[in-house]
């Protein structure tokens, strides 16, 4: 038993629903109680889908348990087939149905439906949403993909995109353009936008492009094993990775490494003098493994940030992420406990967080700006405009979204110069964010306002690290307040660790400036 307040991932059947919902002419029958139909709103509200997910829930009740839940399941299968006439049917059990052991797969197979029935084993008490998506897609491929001759023209499949994926729709469009520009046809995109009949012809492609290892890795491996299709492993997030991706594709396809960079603005935006202030900004990065690792490279190599924390919530990616963290000289944070992540952020007091919607809320509470780089995300992360994360336009988008929450360079100087001016007081925040974006004095959007013990107006509480027994003299405390809020956390932290290394028990104004000189870069 483990107490959870907020979770990064849903249960595995939600992952399977993401696969089914991304596809066309697929239907899923889920053996589940009525409350599990909440999953529909993830798609219709958060992603604003204009169709119900193609899922029939059996919605068994307590009174059915002693009676015939298996019969209920078969009725639901039959009715779902009759009404929706899918090309294939997925069947699975939710956490509750797993306990009553009706064997949906066996039941559905015994019914003689005229379409392929694909049973899914989703261990709800061990695994989570990404596994569910990955497993569902793999089982679909295994059941439907047939050996086929390769297409005459060089072609590939784009794998891993699902419904409710973070920018999957736009990423796929962006990468498709890049591939087509190189003269490579896209055979099938799956699961997103594929019908079961498209899955059947996956084997026609010469190779695979795996954009989202979280949700497509097992399928990609299986296709490699079964059909000898090699797989491009580089995820084209950021300029460097996109160029590497193109090289890799070119080598594999025997094509020229053509990459149209006429619309690539990110490197110049990053090099231009107004971006100097980005140098060495301390960022904390957390998300799914793939996005977190890519963000770390972009942050260091393309933005000039200083990565001070790196982690992911999906254990499946723990190994490569740990290796990368070591390369950055960091200890990776592998955790799906958001309190642990919050504590790590509070302790490090970064100047920017790159995270999920959880970290966005943590950032609000701690008064630290945050840009979202990974699922889980909320409705505001599904913009109306074209906004990929991958490829050339993706690199531009990364620059814009990461820089947006920060106080801009020139503004930073003005804030320092006029810090006594009422318009530049702490709570004014970046001028492009409207009124008082930060620091958040209390929790966001509570329906009935009330104090929370956890609402801390400033990052880096005095207890951070082992500095708890170091005392700030009142002069020094006053001087610290004169430092603009967005660097104050860092100043406090640096001063405390400076004092600690010197064995000081008190911090005076002099200590503060000695520390400043010590850390000057």
């Amino acid at each position, binding site marked *: 038993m483990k107490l959870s307040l*907020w979770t990064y991932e849903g249960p595995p059947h939600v992952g399977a629903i993401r696969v089914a919902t991304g596809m066309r002419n697929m239907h899923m029958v889920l053996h589940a109680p*009525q*409350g599990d139909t909440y999953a*529909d709103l993830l798609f219709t509200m958060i992603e604003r889908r*204009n169709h119900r997910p193609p899922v029939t*829930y059996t919605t068994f009740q307590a009174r059915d348990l002693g009676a015939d839940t298996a019969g209920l399941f078969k009725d*639901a299968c039959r009715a779902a087939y009759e009404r929706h006439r899918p090309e294939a049917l997925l069947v699975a059990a939710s956490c509750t149905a797993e306990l009553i052991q009706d064997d949906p797969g066996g039941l559905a197979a015994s019914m003689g439906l005229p379409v392929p029935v694909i049973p899914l084993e989703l261990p*709800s008490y061990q695994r989570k949403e990404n596994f569910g998506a990955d497993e569902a897609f793999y089982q679909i491929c295994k059941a439907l993909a047939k050996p086929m001759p390769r297409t005459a023209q060089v072609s590939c499949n784009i794998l891993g995109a699902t419904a409710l994926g973070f920018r999957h729709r736009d990423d796929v469009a962006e990468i498709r353009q890049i591939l087509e520009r190189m003269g490579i046809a896209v055979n099938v995109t799956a699961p997103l936008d594929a019908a079961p009949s498209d899955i059947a012809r996956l084997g026609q492609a010469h190779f695979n492009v795996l954009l989202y290892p979280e949700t497509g890795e097992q399928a990609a491996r299986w296709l490699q094993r079964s059909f000898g299709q090699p797989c491009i492993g580089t995820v084209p997030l950021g300029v460097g990775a996109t160029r590497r991706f193109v090289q890799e594709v070119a080598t594999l396809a025997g094509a020229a490494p053509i990459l149209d960079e006429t619309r690539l603005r990110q490197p110049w935006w990053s090099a231009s003098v107004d971006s100097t202030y980005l140098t060495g900004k301390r960022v904390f990065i957390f998300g799914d493994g793939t996005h977190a690792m890519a963000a770390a490279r972009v942050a260091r190599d393309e933005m000039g940030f200083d990565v001070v924390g790196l982690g992911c919530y999906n254990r499946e990616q723990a190994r490569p992420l740990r290796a990368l963290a070591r390369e950055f000289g960091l200890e990776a944070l592998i955790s799906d406990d958001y309190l642990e992540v919050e504590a790590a952020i509070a302790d490090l007091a970064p100047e920017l967080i790159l995270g999920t919607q959880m970290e966005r809320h943590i950032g609000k509470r701690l008064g630290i700006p945050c840009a979202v780089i990974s699922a889980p995300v909320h409705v505001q992360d599904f913009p109306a405009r074209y906004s990929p994360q991958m490829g050339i336009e993706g690199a531009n988008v990364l620059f814009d979204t990461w820089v947006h929450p920060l106080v801009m360079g020139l503004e930073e100087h003005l804030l320092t110069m006029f810090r006594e001016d009422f318009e530049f007081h702490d709570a004014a925040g970046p001028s492009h964010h409207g009124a008082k974006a930060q620091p958040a004095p209390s929790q966001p959007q509570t329906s009935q306002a009330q104090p929370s013990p956890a609402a801390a107006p400033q990052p880096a509480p005095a207890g951070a690290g082992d500095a708890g027994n170091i005392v700030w003299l009142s002069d020094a405390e006053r001087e610290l307040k004169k430092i603009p809020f967005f660097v104050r956390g860092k100043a406090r932290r640096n001063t405390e660790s400076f004092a600690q290394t010197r064995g000081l028990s008190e911090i005076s104004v002099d200590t503060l400036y000695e520390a400043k000189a010590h850390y000057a870069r």
Partner: protein
Amino acid sequence: MTRGCLDTPVIKERGQHEVFCGLTSIIWLHRKMQDAFFLVVGSRTCAHLLQSAAGVMIFAEPRFGTAILEEKDLAGMADANAELDREVATLLQRRPDIRQLFLVGSCPSEVIKLDLARAAERLSAQFAPHVRVLNFSGSGIETTFTQGEDTCLASMVPALPASDAHQLLLVGALPDVVEDQARALLAQIGIETVHCLPAQRADATPSIGPNTKYALTQPFLGETHAALQRRGARWIAAPTPLGVEGTTLWLMAIADAFGISRAQVEAAIAAPRARAQAAVARVAETLQGKSAFFMPDSQMEPALARFLQRECGMEIVEIGTPYLHAELHRPELALLAAGPRLAEGQDVERQLDRVRAARPDITVCGLGLANPLEAEGLTTKWAIELVFTPVHLFEQAADLAGLFARPIRRKQILAPGAPKMEAAE
């Protein structure tokens, strides 16, 4: 008195339900009871449901959480009770502000027959007197959406202290602003001692006894109603205080029960009632003559339909409700003019067929169905907003009408450039 919809045959359906489970009630209950913590004993699904339904609105360290069952709990490798005790101890240590702890049963905990009642007794003994531990079911196999509030309040009733005082108890989790209005109105009428269940804090817990009369503020409190009667308290039968008429009849019924004259009530409510009538009339201009279809969600559907039909001039096509409580829904059905279909339970596919055939001007439905129906050219109102928004009593009557009028007005405003989804049919 006419029989209204009392003789309307009820369509009873058994197919796919598209509703929340009772766990969802925790989202408003935990805001109402400010020193209570709701610990769901369930699965990752339960945690994800709470987060998906609540995440939009609140993101503090919430006063609810899920003790997620793991493989080892199910395989008997770990003693689930010992695990639960450990999680509760950690939780209470971290949150010394918590005075009431609810262990909330889910489908998984009920299927594996984890005895939360015994766990609550055990933990109560351990943490008394600072913390009281109770348990109720919010599972999807037992409860639908608002029934979670019902089972929660019902769990509190046996623990209420006894009292012989002549007193009024209001039952149902009202937003604080509405609760204050109710107290003020009742004081005007001449009833000064008013208690509420649930109370905001544990130390304000009401007492109960044979001289307690209670009025329900929500129509979905069937189990609580039964529990209160077992404690000897007397129910004041009345419609739900929604809309001008509902509020008036509700207050009149309470006054009757306390031997207060109608004239005294009339005098006390004249001003707020007139104000509310005028405000509702303005909003109702948008609603007059329009048709409405209720998908089942909260058991508030008959009361809402009665308000829309009798005060806003709407035609009600169908009133779907998860459960039609013979006694509690009776006052509403008696008021509703015959005409609407009544449906209990659900077969969502068939019900959607009926929606498409009727093409109502507004369909009241859950979040999973709203956008898909809008894409078919229909106008919808999310049912969940009717539970989260202050809608009771005179001062909110026009707001309630506004919740239905706004989607219709929006459709009219956007009409010229609206996506022509209908053309695709």
